[in-house]
């Protein structure tokens, strides 16, 4: 299948999904609120939703080693794109899902994409979900991303989610919810970088409902300029489960970060831990890199890059 991609489209796609040209296997690329190109594979079916805008992605039980790409790009100013994507991941699957949204706004009007993603992870399924958000463009219009992620995990399923917002997103409110059944394991990593006057809020609610379920929430963020960030992760233990929440933020310039990690236990067998640390880049790190010949700016850049890597 061939479609015309402008250099701007291509750049956005490579930033958010590291795709160059068309990917292999199953994919669905959405541009400016419309389907651009789609491909289902033998085991992965992508279909347009009947009720809402968006797609249903159904992965056959036992599918192993396959990757689905569902990137979204927005290049038209003044557009508010709301999309519902549902993933039905069959029993015993082992798959990777690569999503992401890139906005290029070169006008005065706002561009907004709100992706509502729901994951139904079947028994013993293993899923790796990678989502990157990115904004660019010389326009004064805002670039807004308000993703909602819902994860329903059946017995023994295993899910690793990596949610990243790289640069250029004016405002974001992220809502992530998860329910874990018996023996399910979720690793939720969120990485955020805000700059200038950007704002970011991340709300998370993870309910550990089954025995032996576990969640690890890792949040790493950098706030620069006048930007502000708020973290609100909540882990609820309702069974013999384990939960660990770790928020780690680097603050620079006049930025502001609020971290309110919460844990709530409704079972005496629940073991829940949270940690939060906010601070500037440690002086001894910058000095060490300067003794290796780096300037102060170079040292800072290296430290931030690795902190968010």
């Amino acid at each position: 299948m061939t479609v015309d991609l402008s250099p701007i489209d291509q750049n956005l796609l490579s930033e958010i999904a590291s795709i160059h040209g068309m990917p292999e296997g199953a994919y669905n690329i959405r541009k400016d609120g419309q389907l651009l190109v789609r491909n289902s594979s033998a085991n992965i079916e992508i279909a347009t939703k009947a009720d809402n805008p968006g797609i249903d992605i159904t992965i056959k039980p036992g599918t192993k080693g396959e990757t689905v790409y569902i990137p979204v790009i927005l290049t038209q100013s003044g557009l508010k794109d709301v999309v519902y994507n549902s993933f039905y991941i069959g029993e015993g699957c082992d798959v990777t899902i690569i999503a992401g949204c890139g906005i290029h706004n070169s006008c005065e009007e706002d561009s907004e994409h709100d992706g509502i993603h729901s994951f139904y992870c079947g028994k013993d399924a293993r899923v790796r979900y990678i989502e990157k958000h990115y904004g660019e463009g010389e326009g004064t219009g805002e670039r807004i991303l308000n993703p909602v992620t819902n994860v329903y995990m059946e017995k023994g399923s295993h899910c690793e989610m990596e949610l990243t917002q790289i640069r250029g997103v004016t405002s974001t409110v992220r809502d992530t919810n998860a329910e874990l059944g018996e023996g399910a394991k979720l690793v939720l990593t969120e990485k955020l970088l805000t700059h200038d006057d950007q704002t970011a809020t991340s709300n998370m609610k993870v309910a550990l409902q089954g025995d032996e379920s576990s969640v690890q929430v890792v949040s790493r963020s950098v706030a620069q300029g006048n930007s502000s960030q708020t973290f609100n992760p909540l882990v609820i233990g309702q069974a013999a489960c384990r939960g660990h929440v770790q928020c780690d933020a680097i603050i620079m310039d006049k930025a502001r970060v609020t971290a309110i990690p919460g844990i709530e236990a409704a079972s005496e067998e629940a073991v829940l831990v949270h940690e939060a640390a906010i601070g500037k880049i440690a002086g001894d790190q910058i000095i060490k890199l300067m003794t290796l010949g780096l300037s102060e700016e170079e040292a800072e850049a290296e430290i931030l890059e690795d902190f968010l890597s």
Partner: protein
Amino acid sequence: MLELRNLSFEVPTQERSQETKRIIDDLSLTIEDDRFTVITGPNGGGKSTLAKLIMGVEQPSAGQILFDGTDITHLPIAERAKLGIGYGFQQPARFKGMKVKKLLDLAAGKKLPMLACNEYLAKVGLCSASYLTREVDKSLSGGEMKRIEIATILARDPKLAIYDEPEAGIDLWSFDRLTETFRDIHSARNGRSIVIISHQERIIQLADDIVWIKDGRIEAQGAADVIMPQLGFLAKDHPICTLTQPTELHLTEIPTTC
């Protein structure tokens, strides 16, 4: 060649106080090329401060620092690094998310081949290549961190390398490997000088020259065979630091299989 001329470093006795105390007191010292110098002396004597003044981490209140004839007294840290001065910190910095491999690359100023990295690690007694992908964060033990710090200086290969208590927290087997490494660098004699700040008799024994620093001043200095016999006497002057009982050499549970 490094020359320190009448170097002083003063800090306020208390925050915002006008009164100052001298940490380094009118100190002059010359370190020739190809020399292996050990700086020793009691805790709090000013050894690390002196090293930081040489590296540019601290600024002297008076005096001059010359490196190969150039006045570097007011040069920024990175410039001194580029001229060939290196410093292995007594308390190494940790970096969240940075891999050991990356830190070695930054130290060398280029992407190092895996083989070279493994060699640097082996030289400090870290024998598993798996260390390269470990993060330089709290997950490393004190002794591992210390040895990685030393490896960064080996990778950097500066003309003048200052190691601040490299033996601290390092187990006996790695310590043997480390002394061998210092001996090898020294015997190459390719214009490089090594300065080691140490309380360890076995490191002091390797030195050409010994400098004994106390209260910010040089109390004794000279060829190792002349100063060594005096060290016991000098140490007795200061009951908190006796050379016969090294303070920080102890065994840790680090696997050392090479």
